């Protein structure tokens, strides 16, 4: 009698967890199906080659926004990846336990947790106001600030996985510490570090808020990094909140391109990691 009740309760709770898990996945399929359905019908070759057209005209594209996203993510990577990896090396190889390392780890966690729009505000007040104009460079800076803590976290995890015997083998051969890190430890962890970097790139590629008041957006090609530059997420935001049907179509197409980019990066990052563990 009592056991039957216990078994019933067990069965009920486990069913609830299973159902809840599937409920959690409904939005994923909801979003993906709408983006694919609406995106494909609006996607064309012109979308990748043309500049945006004035409102109401069809046939415009987002070529400048696609290139803009690539450029700014590239700037962010150029700054964020080296700083992140070097800081992570310090945290694992030179100094794991001192107050400085604890402080840096704390700062890393804080930076991961603060809203990305805050980064936009800071870069606006520090860079845009000082330089006097919105620019691609400012956008890249903002994205790099979001990237740094992500890279530190993932790189640190990877370096921690390397066993001490590998480091000791290096020292036993009389190789200096710096060389051990560069020639033995980094190559061993390379795939994991690259995976982390790709995930960080995927994450910042979709960021909108930090670009709103740094890179601003641009209906035309930017001729230098010191000019406002369009990006896919900002363009999607502007088009989605506009009242024009043609622009809504473009926003769906842009979302399809953006999501594809993010998912491809995620999948290939996972693939790279799996081939390592086998």
């Amino acid at each position: 009698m009592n056991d039957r009740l216990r078994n019933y309760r067990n069965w009920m709770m486990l069913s609830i967890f299973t159902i809840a898990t599937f409920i959690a996945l409904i939005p994923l399929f909801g979003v993906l199906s709408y983006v694919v359905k609406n995106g494909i019908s609006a996607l064309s070759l012109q979308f990748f080659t043309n500049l945006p057209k004035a409102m109401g005209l069809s046939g415009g594209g987002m070529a400048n926004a696609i290139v803009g996203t690539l450029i700014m993510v590239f700037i962010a990577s150029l700054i964020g990846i080296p700083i992140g990896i070097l800081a992570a090396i310090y945290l694992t190889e030179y100094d794991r336990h001192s107050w400085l390392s604890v402080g840096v780890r704390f700062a890393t966690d804080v930076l991961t947790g603060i809203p990305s729009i805050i980064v936009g505000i800071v870069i606006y007040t520090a860079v845009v106001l000082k330089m006097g104009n919105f620019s691609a460079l400012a956008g890249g800076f903002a994205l790099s600030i979001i990237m740094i803590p992500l890279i530190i976290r993932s790189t640190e995890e990877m370096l921690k996985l390397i066993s001490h015997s590998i480091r000791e083998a290096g020292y036993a051969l009389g190789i200096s510490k710096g060389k051990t890190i560069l020639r033995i430890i980094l190559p061993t962890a390379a795939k994991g570090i690259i995976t982390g970097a790709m995930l960080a790139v995927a994450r910042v590629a979709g960021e909108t808020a930090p670009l709103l008041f740094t890179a601003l957006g641009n209906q035309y090609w930017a001729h230098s990094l010191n000019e406002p530059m369009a990006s896919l997420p900002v363009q999607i935001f502007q088009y989605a909140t506009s009242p024009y049907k043609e622009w809504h179509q473009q926003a769906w197409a842009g979302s399809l391109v953006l999501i594809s980019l993010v998912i491809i990066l995620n999948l290939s990052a996972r693939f790279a990691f799996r081939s390592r563990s086998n």
Partner: protein
Amino acid sequence: MSKKIKYKTSFGDQLMWILTLLMAISVLVLMVWMGWQMYHSARPSIQRFGFSFIIGRVWDPVKEQFGALPFIYGTIVTSLIALLLAAPIGLSVAIFLNEMALSKVRTVIGFLVEMLAAIPSVVYGLWGIFVLAPWLRETVEPGLAKWLGFIPFFKGSPVGFGMLAGGLILAIMILPTIAAISREVMAAVPNMQREAALALGATKWEMIRLAVLPYAKSGIMGGVMLGLGRALGETMAVTMVIGNRPDILLSLFAPAYSMAAVIANEFTEATYDLYLSALVEIGLILFGITLILNVFARLLIWSVAKGPKGGSLV
């Protein structure tokens, strides 16, 4: 760590050490600098309005009146809706993946839940405008008003764009965070605990309830707090569905505004310094709240990951 051992150091070695040290310090400097930079820009507004900034209900840039309460209210209500929905579901996902699913199912569903986190916020917003909000307006909100209309939260005409839409979309966005952290801390529960419970004849649910959840409790709390932090600061998706009207209304159907949304919408339109400063102060409040939340959340998660018996974890 053998700190006393002197390695043979060359110039390159020294350079490597100094370079990595500088980069590590730069992260610390970056955090402090961001806080200071914001405080500096927000100071005119702080000095002018003082505490009344937080409790003021009127936001009228034309008359130079800045009260942030409507935004704080909208942010808190939408985040609470999100938490109410995402915490139980996120925890269920973690239990399902950690304690129930076979390894192949775990890999696939675990990946799908991570994808939920990978979708850019602006895409959620687009989906919110054209799919979620119309659905709420035509189906959900009339239904809620019909059956639960006696509760003031569910009164009022269905608009679609409002706090309910904002809360729902936030729930979707923070669910992966809560699920991932809960999974992490539940994985840190030693298997001995589970086996002991099973050996005593516990059913699976009893094992989860008696051996796993108590052990992981504070870590799960930490995950929920991190989720809350994310919800409070999430900008784009909320901006696109919350309706953007600085009112304080009980009805969840009513359009509202959030702190991050007002910054996103008005920052580039701030025509004079005090206006900009007021917006930065909203950002500063957001920065402060998320910072405190993060500190508490990390402490909770660390306490679990270390484990009461100080095992080999982490």
